[in-house]
């Protein structure tokens, strides 16, 4: 911070000194600031301290708190100046301001003093203490003595659910919470009430916050009004957390997180700023979903391996257990939630012809189309998504499957308002002014969905359709576009058949001109509909939008645009985002090739062998609960596989059946890469060493290879192709030598000095084990990364991936703004070469059998559309007691008209019977009924599927439920909720007990590593 050379400091920031920069004199020293920033952002970007509350880099300025007052001088001769709010002041070249000037400085102190008239003095018991923005700002302004002698205002708090705590007395009325929840994230159940100095933020009545972004309140609130209840329940101060940079393992967006641990238990997840991706915000699944790593369902012991010593498992034990499989043929089933390394290793182990990505044939066809799309149309990151001026969402409720993307879409829709504001000179950071000018003006969002979604309030046009109807609508759209643009149908593509309804016609005719006019149109879809045909239609739509004819047409539309702009417009504008279900599904796409098996093929090979003699001896299941398999299929797999080896971190149906079960490290205890929806290979780091025998999956695979595939490893000579790997770096190198298309060079480790995972204020390190031994233990070694399990080492910001965020004077997450080179993304990106290989083996199958199955329906057979909420649709997080408590039980949404016809009321219980494509046995049960006016009568949306299961288009029959069945169902529901509650209590008790006796490992490597 002593560095005041503006150019240098700007470069240090990793920002370019360009024509966007101008010079501002701050206390008579020149600084470079971005001309599009407001003064506050410019000051902070130069790492100068200036306190603030209501401003937020993503949410802009509203001028409510008045904390960032500075003195602005007219010129160098002006010695008095006037006070302005930095956040509300645009920067101009040569402007002069003072941060030190006494009047402004006193005013800033008084603002804190005024806030403190009501803020309680409860820092010792406040969960925010030690990372509180209000604490930091209070110290920064020098406010230290209380002058107000009146009573403090008090409020009643609300129950906001199991995730977010509420303590309104701490509120300093900065309005950030409501601006985030309602204005930024579109939440409907949170607002600001009252007036004067009795302004209250909360819900209309007590109740669970409905937004899937509610956890951001904890980070957005500058003090302790909103707290992370899960963190508070098993609390530790921020400075005592051991943290590592991580990547969210709960969907394919790959938001960057920082996971914090203490005494061997993970305590919380906070957002890790990445300006290319998640920015400042996470969804609640990402923030609160981590609980599974502490859960009872975790596998912490091996089974099927005889241990020599009662205390510990050795490599020899493993080798002995596996050695007799030498030379046998195994099929390996990979997983979208396992690391890229583990999947690649598995594929190497079993060979390309023995590798299954854990997907069904339907999903493989989808994957093939997806890979083609990724190859042709690089997917935009979140900042790019936010630049879109038209969004078309197809068949995926992104608000529930990949909420962070939906949040970005919501911001994109504001572009029309921002553009209007710009015409009268309002900058985009001036949030209140932009919202005043923009009002209800939104960029167009078109939506083709099977069910109503939370983006409907800002949707220009929507149709509620089944996947098959969606596919048909897209085909008509493509056909119309081709006609309009004079593009001949490629490959003699048949024109779309069948009549099109008036509403679909209207949708298409409204969409086409806007799509052609849009500068940055964006199409979003995902795997929920499980229809390769829909993806194929989207690929075709993209092809049309990227065709010369289309770009020529677009250039012609904007006639008033200048010539050079028109030329620049020749760049393809349309962007595509396809969202797979899991954190590393995209990694699986990368690894999939022509030989990759589907689950059906795995089953058929297992059963066929006996006749053909093509012997498959066993199956290795890597971190996969295989939700697409029915119980019968799972039983068949078990029956036919001579040996079943399962590597996983949590109990699944297969961990029960495994011959050999190996406990794997979940995201917080392991090292690896996840490939996000764009193909970004993002590294996650071990937060704390796992307790043996829990190991990274890839370490287990390495042991398996050494035993089964290289029996000579112990005793004999090590063959050339096998290498024992001790770190992720070695592994990445090893895999790249094995002819696997390894996407990136391993990162050079920062070896001179390790970077601390713990904060330099972490307390009690030498005392942590005092109950076991008074000798200070050796620090755990960290071979896979440059981060050390210690408070010693370089500061957290020495690496681009920061374990946690801290800057001098800034203990809260707002320290991100004060760190140079904030959030620059260095992750390598895959290019998805040769997509056709996969496409050839998984071509688009016309779903004739489905067609007949569906057309033979009687009028009581309806189309089932998957509609699960964010806490229900991802397997790992769905085991958390809090998420289970959020689950409303079986719910089915039907058309209001249909319900009336059946004389059913909202809230009634009905019996259902439904089956998915390819399923022989119908699933049956009881569900509660909700009604929706706009839903077509033939569609039923519901949450009946298991977490992790994607659906396609099922057939469902509804009938009146028997009273006795309803009673049984209600009882089961009550028991389910009671069980979740009991599990939560038990878990907390166990964790708190464990705090007293922490097991510590010295080296985070393989077995026997002490």
């Amino acid at each position, binding site marked *: 911070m002593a560095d005041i050379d503006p150019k240098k400091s700007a470069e240090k920031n990793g920002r370019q000194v360009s024509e966007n920069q101008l010079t501002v004199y701050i206390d008579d020293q020149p600084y470079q600031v971005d001309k599009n920033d407001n003064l506050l952002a410019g000051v902070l970007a130069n790492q100068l301290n200036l306190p603030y509350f209501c401003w937020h880099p993503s949410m802009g300025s509203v001028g409510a708190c008045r904390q960032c007052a500075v003195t602005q001088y007219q010129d160098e001769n002006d010695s008095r100046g006037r006070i302005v709010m930095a956040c509300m002041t645009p920067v101009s070249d040569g402007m002069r301001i003072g941060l030190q000037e006494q009047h402004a400085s006193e005013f800033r102190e008084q603002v804190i003093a005024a806030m403190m008239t009501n803020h309680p003095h409860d820092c010792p018991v406040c969960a925010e203490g030690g990372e509180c923005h209000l604490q930091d700002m209070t110290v920064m302004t020098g406010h230290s003595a209380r002058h107000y002698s009146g009573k403090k*205002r008090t409020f009643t708090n*609300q129950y906001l659910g199991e995730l977010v705590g509420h303590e309104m007395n701490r509120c300093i009325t900065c309005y950030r919470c409501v601006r985030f929840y309602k204005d930024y994230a579109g939440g409907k159940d949170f607002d*600001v*009430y*009252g007036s004067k100095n*009795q302004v209250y933020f909360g819900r209309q009545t007590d109740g669970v916050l409905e937004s899937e972004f509610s956890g951001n309140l904890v980070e957005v609130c500058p003090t302790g009004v909103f707290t992370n209840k899960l963190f508070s329940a098993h609390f530790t101060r921020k400075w005592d957390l051991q943290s590592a940079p991580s990547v969210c393992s709960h969907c394919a967006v790959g938001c960057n997180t920082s996971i914090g641990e203490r005494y061997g238990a993970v305590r919380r997840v906070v957002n890790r700023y990445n300006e290319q991706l998640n920015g400042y915000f996470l969804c609640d699944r990402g923030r609160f979903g981590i609980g599974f790593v502490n859960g009872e369902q975790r596998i912490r012991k091996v089974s099927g391996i005889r241990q020599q010593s009662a205390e510990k498992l050795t490599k020899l034990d493993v080798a002995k257990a596996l050695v007799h499989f030498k030379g046998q043929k195994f099929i390996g089933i990979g997983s979208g939630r396992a690391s890229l390394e583990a999947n690649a290793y598995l594929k190497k182990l079993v060979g390309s012809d023995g590798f299954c990505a854990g997907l069904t044939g339907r999903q493989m066809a989808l994957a093939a189309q997806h890979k083609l799309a990724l190859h042709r149309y690089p997917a935009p990151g979140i900042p790019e998504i936010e630049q879109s001026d038209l969004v078309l969402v197809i068949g995926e409720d992104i608000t529930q499957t990949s909420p962070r993307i939906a949040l970005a879409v919501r911001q994109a829709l504001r572009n029309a308002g921002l553009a209007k504001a710009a015409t009268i000179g309002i900058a985009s950071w001036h949030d209140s002014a932009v919202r005043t000018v923009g009002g*209800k003006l939104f960029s167009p969002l078109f939506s083709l969905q099977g069910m109503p979604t939370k983006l409907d*309030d800002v949707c220009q046009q929507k149709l509620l359709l089944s996947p098959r109807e969606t596919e048909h609508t897209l085909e008509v759209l493509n056909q119309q576009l081709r006609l309009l643009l004079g593009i001949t149908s490629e490959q003699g593509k048949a024109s779309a058949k069948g009549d099109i309804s008036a509403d679909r016609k209207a949708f298409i005719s409204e969409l086409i001109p806007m799509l052609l006019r849009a500068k940055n149109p964006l199409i979003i879809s995902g795997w929920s509909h499980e229809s390769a045909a829909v993806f194929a239609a989207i690929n075709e739509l993209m092809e049309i939008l990227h065709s010369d004819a289309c770009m020529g047409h677009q250039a012609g539309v904007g006639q008033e645009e200048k010539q050079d702009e028109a030329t620049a417009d020749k760049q393809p504008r349309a962007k595509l985002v396809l969202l797979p279900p899991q954190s590393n599904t995209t990694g699986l796409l990368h690894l999939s090739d022509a030989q990759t098996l589907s689950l059906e093929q795995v089953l058929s090979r297992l059963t066929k062998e006996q006749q053909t003699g093509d012997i498959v001896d066993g199956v290795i299941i890597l971190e996969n609960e295989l939700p697409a398999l029915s119980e019968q299929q799972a039983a068949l797999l078990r029956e036919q596989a001579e040996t079943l080896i399962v590597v996983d971190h949590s109990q699944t149906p297969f961990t029960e059946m495994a011959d050999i079960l190996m406990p794997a490290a979940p995201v917080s205890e392991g090292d690896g890469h996840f490939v996000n929806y764009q193909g970004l290979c993002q590294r996650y780091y071990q937060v704390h060493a796992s307790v043996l025998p829990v190991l990274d999956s890839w370490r287990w695979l390495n042991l398996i290879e050494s035993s089964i595939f290289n029996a000579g490893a112990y005793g004999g000579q090590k063959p050339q192709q096998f290498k024992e790997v001790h770190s992720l770096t070695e592994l990445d190198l090893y895999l790249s030598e094995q002819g696997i298309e390894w996407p990136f060079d391993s990162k050079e480790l920062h070896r001179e000095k390790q970077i601390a995972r713990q904060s330099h204020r972490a307390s009690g390190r030498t005392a942590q084990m005092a109950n076991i031994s008074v000798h200070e233990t050796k620090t755990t070694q960290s071979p896979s990364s440059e981060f050390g399990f210690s408070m010693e080492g370089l500061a957290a910001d020495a690496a681009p991936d920061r374990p946690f965020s801290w800057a001098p004077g800034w203990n809260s997450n707002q320290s991100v703004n004060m760190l140079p080179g904030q959030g620059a993304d260095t992750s390598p990106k895959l290019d998805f070469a040769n997509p056709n290989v996969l496409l050839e083996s998984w071509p688009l199958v016309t779903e004739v059998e489905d067609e007949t199955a569906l057309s033979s329906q009687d009028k009581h057979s309806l189309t089932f559309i998957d509609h699960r909420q964010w806490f229900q649709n991802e397997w790992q997080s769905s085991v958390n007691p809090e998420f289970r408590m959020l689950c409303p039980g079986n719910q089915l949404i039907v058309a209001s008209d249909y319900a009336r016809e059946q004389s059913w009321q909202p809230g009634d219980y009905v019996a259902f019977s439904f089956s998915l494509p390819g399923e022989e046995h119908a699933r049956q049960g009881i569900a509660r009924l*909700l009604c929706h*006016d706009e839903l077509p009568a033939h569609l039923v949306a519901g949450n009946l599927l298991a977490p992790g299961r994607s659906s396609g288009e099922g057939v469902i029959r509804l009938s009146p439920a028997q009273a006795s069945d309803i009673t049984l169902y209600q009882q089961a529901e009550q028991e389910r909720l009671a069980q979740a509650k009991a599990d939560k209590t038990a878990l907390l008790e166990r964790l708190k007990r464990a705090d007293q006796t922490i097991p510590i490992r010295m080296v985070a490597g393989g077995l026997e590593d002490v």
Partner: protein
Amino acid sequence: MQIINTITPDYRSYLSKEEMAAIEHEASIMETREAAGIEALKVVQKHRGWISDDSLYAIAQMLNMSAAELEGVATFYNLIYRQKVGRYVIHICNSISCHLSGYQQVLQAIKAHLGIDYGQTTADGMFTLLSNACLGGCDKAPVMMIGERHYEYLTPEKAVEILEKIAAGASTENYLSSFLNEGDAAADRENKPRSRDYLDDDDVAGEISEMELSDD
């Protein structure tokens, strides 16, 4: 996403035709539906005396806005009652001209006569006492407003007499028309006596908002 479930009543069965027509009219003269929110609250309050939670949900649904947002509006403005009030709400002006002219004595007399403090309602449900910022009758101070009528040049005795008259007259059906400043037809229509039935309905259906602002 407006999924109809069992918790929210359908406004079409909750609001009266008259209320809905008046609200629709207000919405029709504004660019957005929610712009009619304040008027809608006033319309329903005119009919039912106050805004219960169910009234709030019904209006919000009708204007296609969230109940939370409407609550934010309702709690901002002091002439919207989010708690049950008496049949007559006394707004006594406590601003500067009335202060200089001795409203304090008038206030004391009213409190003593009714046995209630600010924010309270008499046990018989007849009167609620509230303060009001300047009523614009500074030349005729002290001033209070009850219903739609302003009472000026108050003295403690005069104030009590007014309250007694209102209480006595409330039992007779036609009192309200003589209680108005002007007996014109339009005003009559707007001021039809509030039916106790509505209030009872609300009493059963709607609890007061969970949010409490305690201020002492």
